[in-house]
């Protein structure tokens, strides 16, 4: 289990993560328009995620300086919300539910680490509520998945665990640090040796006929 020193919680960031989960679950619900009962359950799951986001947002307001992060940048870069969150197209129920299930497992694991390291009552209360919700979601999703082809389910769970791990590495791991350093090196030593005139573009939009003549040009 991770020790407190390695766990640096940022409530605003957690709020974005939960909100991004809410959006992902909402998008999952759109795949189940014909299965009304199931759709409603998934929508209620999304509502729980939005509620969790609110808990963290409130904690952030009380305990952190207000951070000026735009919603879209927060949800995409911090919340990790990808543009097509599901490794599946329409009507692929197993990949979608497996993806959500693995997300719940990760949230439960994270909650355990926090509960072990943070003894503050308010934080403990919040994580206890969230833990209960996430376990409910995970149980519900698993009992639904157990009715399906178990080999496909296991395969999809495995793939999703792997892909989450890879995306974590990509975002926070050594690769990301190396990339930033390489970019800095490039700018300091290569980029700035070009004469400024290389970057100048011709003004060619003075009227429609010029814009028409250059309609296929990127500059």
């Amino acid at each position: 289990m991770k020790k407190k020193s390695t766990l640096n919680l940022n409530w605003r960031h957690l709020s974005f993560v939960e909100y991004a989960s809410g959006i992902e679950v909402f998008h999952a619900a759109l795949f189940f328009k014909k299965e009304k009962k199931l759709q409603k359950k998934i929508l209620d799951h999304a509502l729980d995620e939005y509620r969790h986001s609110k808990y963290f947002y409130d904690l952030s307001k009380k305990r952190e300086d207000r951070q000026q992060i735009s919603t879209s940048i927060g949800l995409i870069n911090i919340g990790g919300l990808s543009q097509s969150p599901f490794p599946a197209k329409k009507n692929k129920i197993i990949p979608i539910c497996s993806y959500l299930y693995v997300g719940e497992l990760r949230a439960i694991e994270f909650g355990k680490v926090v509960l072990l390291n943070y003894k503050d009552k308010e934080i403990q209360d919040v994580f206890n509520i969230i833990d209960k919700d996430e376990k409910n979601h995970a149980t519900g999703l698993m009992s639904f998945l157990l009715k399906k082809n178990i080999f496909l389910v296991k395969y999809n769970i495995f793939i999703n665990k792997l892909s989450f791990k890879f995306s974590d590495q990509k975002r926070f791991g050594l690769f990301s640090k190396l990339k930033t350093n390489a970019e800095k090196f490039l700018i300091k030593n290569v980029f700035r040796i070009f004469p400024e005139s290389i970057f100048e573009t011709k003004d060619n939009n003075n009227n429609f006929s010029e814009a028409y003549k250059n309609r296929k040009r990127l500059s």
Partner: protein
Amino acid sequence: MNYIIGISYGHHESSCTLISSNGDLVYIREEWLSRVKNDYRFPIFSLNFLKDNFLNLEENLISICLFEKPLKNWLGIGLKKNLSVLNYLNKLRQFKKSDIYFEKEIKKVFKSLPEILYCPHHLSHIYSSELLLRKNEPNTLNLVFDGYGEGLSGVIYKGQGDKIRLLKQYQTKSSFGLLYSALTEWIGFSPNEDEYKVMALAGYGLPIYEEYITKNIIFYDEENLNLEINQNFFNFIDSGKPTIKISFEKKFGRLDKNLPILEQTNIINVITSFQNIIENTISNLIKKLISKNSDSKQIILSGGLFHNSKLVGELTRRIDFPIFVSPTPGDAGSSIGAAYFAMLCNKKNYLRVGKPNPYIGPKLESLKNYDHLFKQIENKNTFSKVLEILNDDQIISIFSGYCEVGPRALLSRSLCCNAESKKALLKLNIIIKKRESFRPIAPVISTKYLHKFFDFNPDSIENSFWMGQLIWPKKTTDTKKMPFCHIDKSVRAQVYDENNVVHKQNVPLIIQKLLKENFILANTSLNIAGDPMVFFPEDLYINCKRLEIKYIMQENNLFELINDN
């Protein structure tokens, strides 16, 4: 059937517009589908939505047009040798995410590539307004002011369609858009997102710094229509450094994060002073422009700066001339202009002449198919039931007809209450929407009510059909009975005209009847503050649950949220 698509993305608020040879004009904002406010990514959800809803779109697509020249925009600012390493690092990262890869992104959605076109950024703004406003006048003056695009912050063009020509352009260092964003950031809000809050705050202060700003910060040369913002106070060029410079904070101070904003008089006075200067400068610039172009009969305003309805309201009341602003003047509306440009390039004219129509989004789905989420209330007299709900100071949501094109809810996706009840307004603004107390709620009023109680420029009243401008009550009007007035007595009203065919077709009949009887509705967008407006019935369910809204109106039917808890 042939189709043309315009796309805008890459900065903020991406969108798609489709024009068909049948005369369809359909606009979709990516955030409605992705559920990410101000989503700037390639509009993949919107394009897939169009593919699903327009038969054989791919086979009959003749052109796709981007709203800007991507390489020119990327090179636009910030490539000088004296800029910071962080600025270049940002540039490098922007390159990888920018719309330079437009063609590659298109290939993800369409197997066969149609003709790919690129419309200059500011022309997209102008064409978007021209198409939406449908005011054909060959000598139209087009004024565009935004943050920046392709290295410029503003342009003035004369003419329309393929007879348009450039009169003047403004560099980034004279960007009023970036100035407003910088002020937004300075007072602790998110730049490029919360500018409307700054505008609302400007009503609370006194313009005590006007003289200082005119002498030291904003310079306007009336003869040549030149503008300049002193870069000793701001930084608009280097993205690796703060936008507000130390000299600005030395003069005007800093926000105290522990004090409510309304208690920080000096900060608000600074905001008010800048708002006033911007109004005065643009107003003087337009007056001069009109005097230099006596053959012009109208001015059309575009660009993100003209989202500022206080600015537009001041311009239309000070200048006795037809001044119009589009329902969506910012980058989000530029996909409309890009589609129009592609149509001009193809020498086609698919669009019939018509009235300005802000309802060009997709038609909202019927709630009758969602009986697991909403229950229809069977009532012989729905009108009296709606009236009863409103008179009881309850909130009613409207989810009906075609989506509004701009950022303002226009009774298609709205939350409404009785605007003459302080209790209902407080409930809607603070308790339900959780908005800052300094932000007023907009009312919907009929033209009869407008003529009776308000002063306005009759040439430009159409701007109020989509809440594009503020209006002010007549001196004789008793504003005590108007709790929807802002602190400076201004009102950002949506005006309903019972003779306007677009209003007749799009506003639910029950609401039309209420407005004809001079009932004043408060109207705000159907979403949780900071979220995109609802689009799917599933969204509606989520939002009503989170906002604790019970009643929903669609066409002339009333629904109730199913609540099993």
